[in-house]
């Protein structure tokens, strides 16, 4: 199974590296996020109810999670193309394990995401972020787990729907509430109680809180443990759902 995963991983990575435009875009993206959001940061940080910590320490983890969500969520479009080309069917007739075929792809997506996340953090340091190395690594690991979860789910959705026209609205429908309720864009500290309850049911909000704790260097915080568990749980659930979908006959 792992061997199959590595074969697919290397194959998919090579295909990706052949697209120079794609490489430039993925690397510029983090820079763009920072350059556009940083000017808003100082004034907002002075607002009442802003989460604890230095403005950068609050903002950058949120950006990382957002990168994790948007960087992984759209991989399902790729698998729809593969279904159309017939490559998925061709690989399904080989003895390769279904989980291996899935994992290889997820691994590729996660590697790319981790590189982007690391790059974003480094650039943020240049902009003025102060973060302990261990905390940054933990936060990047959380993003990686999130990437595993979301790219798996996106592949499952792509295989299920088999149509770009159906996948796009689904992703839109899911991403906006998840993003708003995670406290990435606007801190949930501002929210009325009912919205706050809703947010606390959203695993992503715990993931965001966890990475913020990591960035503060607050390793004992319960929010960090909860965040890590939430991310790991999402990854496991995502993989299981995607595995089942890959094993379905019509996939």
């Amino acid at each position, binding site marked *: 199974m792992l061997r*199959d995963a590595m*074969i*697919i991983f290397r*194959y998919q990575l*090579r*295909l990706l590296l*052949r*697209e120079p435009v794609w490489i430039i875009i993925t690397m510029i993206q983090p820079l763009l996020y920072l350059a556009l959001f940083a000017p808003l940061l100082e004034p907002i940080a002075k607002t009442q109810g802003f989460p604890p910590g230095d403005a950068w320490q609050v903002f950058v983890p949120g950006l990382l999670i957002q990168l994790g969500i948007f960087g992984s969520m759209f991989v399902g479009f790729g698998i729809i193309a*593969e279904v159309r*080309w*017939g*490559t*998925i*069917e*061709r*690989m*399904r*007739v*080989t*003895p*390769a394990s279904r989980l291996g075929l899935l994992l290889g792809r997820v691994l590729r997506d996660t590697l790319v995401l981790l590189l982007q996340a690391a790059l974003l953090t480094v650039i943020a340091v240049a902009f003025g972020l102060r973060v302990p190395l261990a905390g940054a690594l933990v936060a990047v690991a959380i993003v990686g787990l999130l990437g595993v979860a979301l790219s798996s789910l996106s592949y499952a959705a792509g295989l299920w729907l088999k149509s770009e026209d159906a996948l796009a609205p689904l992703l839109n429908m899911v991403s906006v509430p998840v993003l708003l309720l995670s406290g990435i864009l606007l801190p949930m500290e501002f929210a009325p109680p009912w919205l706050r309850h809703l947010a606390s049911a959203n695993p992503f909000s715990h993931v965001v809180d966890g990475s913020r704790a990591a960035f503060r260097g607050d390793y004992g915080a319960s929010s960090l443990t909860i965040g890590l568990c939430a991310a790991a749980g999402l990854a496991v659930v995502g993989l299981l759902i995607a595995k089942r979908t890959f094993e379905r*006959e019509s996939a």
Partner: protein
Amino acid sequence: MITARGLARTFKTRTATVEAVRGLDLDVAAGEIVGLLGPNGAGKTTTQRMLATLLAPTAGTATVAGCDLRADPVGVRRQLGYVSQAGGTNPGAKVDEELITQGQLYGLTAATAATRARALCASLDLADLGDRIIGKLSGGQRRRLDIALGLVHQPKLVFLDEPSTGLDPHSRANLWSHIRGLRDQAGATILLTTHYLDEADALCDRIFIIDHGVIVASGTPAELKRRISGDLVTFEVDDVERATAVLRDHPEARDVTAVERGLRVTVDRGEAQALPLMRALDDAGVKVGSLHIAHPSLDDVFLTLTGRSLRE
């Protein structure tokens, strides 16, 4: 090598239920080249996809390459090479890359896969294209790559779904000799689908003709040709029913089909037998308007066997 009993598959779409394959019995011995011949929608692809473990049969059982289809699908996959009707290549990948990855998925090392890929490319007229991006291959080159992908692991059982679509006459002849070579040199068993009678004739030891999901005839090409060869005599008559009754029992008429305002009769030699048949009709009081003798084309063969034309 393949034993199937009562294999069936029904598709449910939103508006209808399609019985694509309806109870197929199939036996293929090791080292045979067997063809599934039939018009569009006959169920050829569905049959192959079931036997290739891609589609679960709604009924029936099958043993493929010694492994039970339902109990040991991975065992089947390990020994099977499958080339689908539509192919399956990533337009962004390179020819070599695709072949080597495919070989690796079958458990070959990268080095062995590369050697096999090179040899296959050479014999399928793809030499020097190893470094080419697949999206930039011609249609025929891509089809030959599809076939190569099904063969990298040197399977002992090969399924080819309309392997020669899109190939020019030269490539087609080359493919045929390659397929024969697979059997003669490597001892492989081959199950291919086609709707070209000449392809089935040139290549297959045995042919199953399927239509509407059932086998309507089977045998060696020679046997089938004997059944379906002969000439077609078409009579225009005033009373089709009576004429059919008369000719059905006539010793020289092998097959009688009603057509528009007349009858189509299969006989061994049209020129010699048309007149006696006409006389028989005349004796029975059927008026014959005209008479037409034709030597059968591929289309007539299908018409005789399936009641349907290959040209739709």
